[in-house]
């Protein structure tokens, strides 16, 4: 009996098999609103289905491979098979189903597809983390995955899936909303920095103010996001009515202004807290030595405190940015636009594929932001 060397892979493989046998792979409905009929993997094209099955078996076998490097290689290969089998299979299968049905019919991705895709991505992430691969390998792997997906999309492999059909409906406004989303996040993070940095200085200088500042920011943090967005409408409307120049600037009860304000308020607590912790954790003896050999306050901050607190500052900024990327989706409710627009439209129209078109890029943005800050953190920590 060979030894099990990676429980995660075996679990993922079992999960994949369970999904194939118990859940639908694609859902075929006469129109958006109708209840569809679920098709399993085995009713789909044989090649792709076999590839996915072979990949799942491969994962199970890989979990018994002793050699760390061989296992990582086998895992990535098997996961690639599953990913290709499920994605290409879904596209191909959808094309077959749509040939028979009316043009209004919708073919959506079912639970088995999502589970297979997640299983393969998790297996790849697991292999990359255990193998402790360098930045170059990580980026190349990501690039290969993205290139494959983009190539298949461009070749029209997915044209019959509801996800792509919904996307082609909103293609013209997708980029606009994406930029708007990024604009909301960027404006909120910058505004939070502009307010947060002086607040941090205040909290560091005056211990008495710290309690009050953290308590007030903590209260803001406890307000549910939808409520905060809503609560801001009335005062912002009154403000813009009282001050015509604000209205001229486009500041109103609805739209981007209250959204950015709300996102900024949410960003302040984690930002100020992490900046405060980072700067106050700079070793006292180092600051003492710096002062004693003649650093003035400005030199101390720029040459000692800032570089030593940099990792903490960057992780604070990372938390704040990722939080803002997620929260900005709610901004669509008060007319600020962004990717949340598609989510709420999708919910309203009972078009779950439209929801995904909004949700996927948000997840992707958060992952990219995380990767960006992790890389910066790695650079900042290298010398400490």
């Amino acid at each position: 009996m060979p030894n099990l060397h990676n429980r995660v892979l075996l679990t993922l493989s079992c999960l994949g098999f369970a999904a194939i046998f118990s859940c639908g792979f694609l859902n075929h409905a006469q129109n958006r609103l109708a209840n569809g009929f679920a098709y399993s993997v085995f009713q789909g094209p044989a090649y792709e289905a076999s590839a996915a099955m072979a990949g799942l078996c491969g994962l199970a076998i890989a979990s018994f491979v002793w050699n760390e490097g061989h296992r990582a290689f086998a895992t990535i290969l098997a996961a690639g098979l599953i990913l290709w089998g499920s994605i290409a299979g879904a596209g191909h299968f959808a094309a077959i189903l749509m040939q028979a049905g009316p043009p209004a019919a919708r073919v959506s991705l079912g639970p088995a597809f999502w589970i297979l895709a997640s299983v393969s991505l998790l297996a790849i992430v697991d292999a990359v983390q255990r193998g402790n691969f360098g930045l170059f390998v990580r980026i190349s792997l990501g690039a290969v995955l993205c290139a494959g997906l983009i190539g298949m999309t461009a070749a029209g492999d997915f044209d019959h899936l509801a996800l792509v059909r919904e996307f082609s409906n909103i293609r013209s406004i997708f980029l606009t909303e994406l930029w708007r989303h990024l604009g909301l996040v960027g404006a909120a993070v910058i505004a939070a920095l502009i307010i947060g940095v002086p607040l941090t200085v205040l909290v560091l200088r005056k211990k008495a103010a710290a309690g009050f500042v953290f308590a007030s920011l903590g209260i803001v943090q406890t307000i549910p996001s939808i409520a905060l967005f809503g609560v801001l409408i009335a005062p912002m409307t009154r403000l813009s009515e009282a001050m015509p120049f604000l209205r001229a600037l486009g500041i109103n009860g609805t739209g981007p202004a209250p959204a950015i304000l709300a996102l900024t308020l949410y960003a302040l607590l984690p930002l100020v807290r992490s900046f405060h912790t980072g700067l106050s954790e700079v070793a006292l003896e180092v600051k003492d030595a710096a002062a004693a050999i003649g650093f003035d306050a400005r030199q101390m901050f720029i040459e000692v405190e800032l570089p030593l607190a940099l990792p903490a500052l960057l992780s604070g900024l990372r938390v704040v940015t990722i939080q803002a990327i997620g929260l900005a989706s709610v901004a669509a409710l008060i007319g600020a636009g962004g990717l949340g627009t598609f989510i709420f439209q999708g919910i309203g129209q009972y078009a779950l594929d439209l929801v995904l078109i909004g949700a996927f890029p948000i997840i992707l943005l958060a992952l990219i932001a995380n990767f960006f800050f992790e890389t910066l953190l790695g650079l900042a920590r290298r010398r400490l």
Partner: protein
Amino acid sequence: MIVLCNVSKTFGATPAVFDFSLKIESGSFFVLVGPSGCGKSTVLRMINAMIVPDKGEIEVHNQNIRTIDPEKLRRGIGYVIQSAGLFPHWTAADNILAVPHLLKWSPSQCAARLDALVALLSIDRALLARYPRQLSGGQQQRIGVARALAADPDIVLMDEPFAALDPVSRAALQDEIAAIHARTAKTIVFVTHDMDEALRLATGLAVMNNGRLIQTGTPAAILLAPADDFVRGFVGGEDLPLRLLDLVPVRKLMKRGNAAVAATIAAGASLKEALNLMLARRSSSLCVVDENGARLGVIHLADIIARRDAL
């Protein structure tokens, strides 16, 4: 010259230093001793304006330090603390050159000074490119001392600099700082609670307790005539007679003549070392020789026991 005149400092409700007056001559190796919490570090930190006294005046080089910009004052005074306090994000070389960097020296000046300091403190050149966390405690403190000496200050303040080191590193750094003092005539103000360290290094000594100056003078004067029971207990108690032997060189009690013994001792060695050698050789006299090994005279156990007149 450093002069403290009726200086007092209170932290909250606790008085740390009370009505403290002291004169430290230029070129002396002045050691402040006393038990933990007696205010000796506070006195030290008042000299470079890290702590501002509530009452009293402090003069450095005949100038009241209240009239000097604190940063400027500090850049002219070396400072070493127990934990070295090196900048963790700077290499050893950058740490050493911290004050020249603040004073905006040219790169060639910095490089020349670095070479001089590396030679002065026998620092391994391979350590210069390392970061503090890659250095041992002894190596870190050596860099810390080099940083204090970097801009060639007249005055160096040292706050229990060797207390956290192993005995070997501590002895090596004590020797080096004593040699540097002898060669450069810098004024060194040194805080410690270790009496052996104080006696080994000091040319002038001040004993403190509860924020007050109890006694000041040369080490020998204090050991011979402790002002009160506290000083007696602190400077040696039962070991006081033995400690005194440490302060007197063999030369002082040497007699002319020849002894019929093989054991020899250098004229510059202390009486304690002579006594040690007598005990080891089971001999009541030793031949005294100079650095070249030429015989100078003889020293007898009876003279060591009756040493008082030598001081």
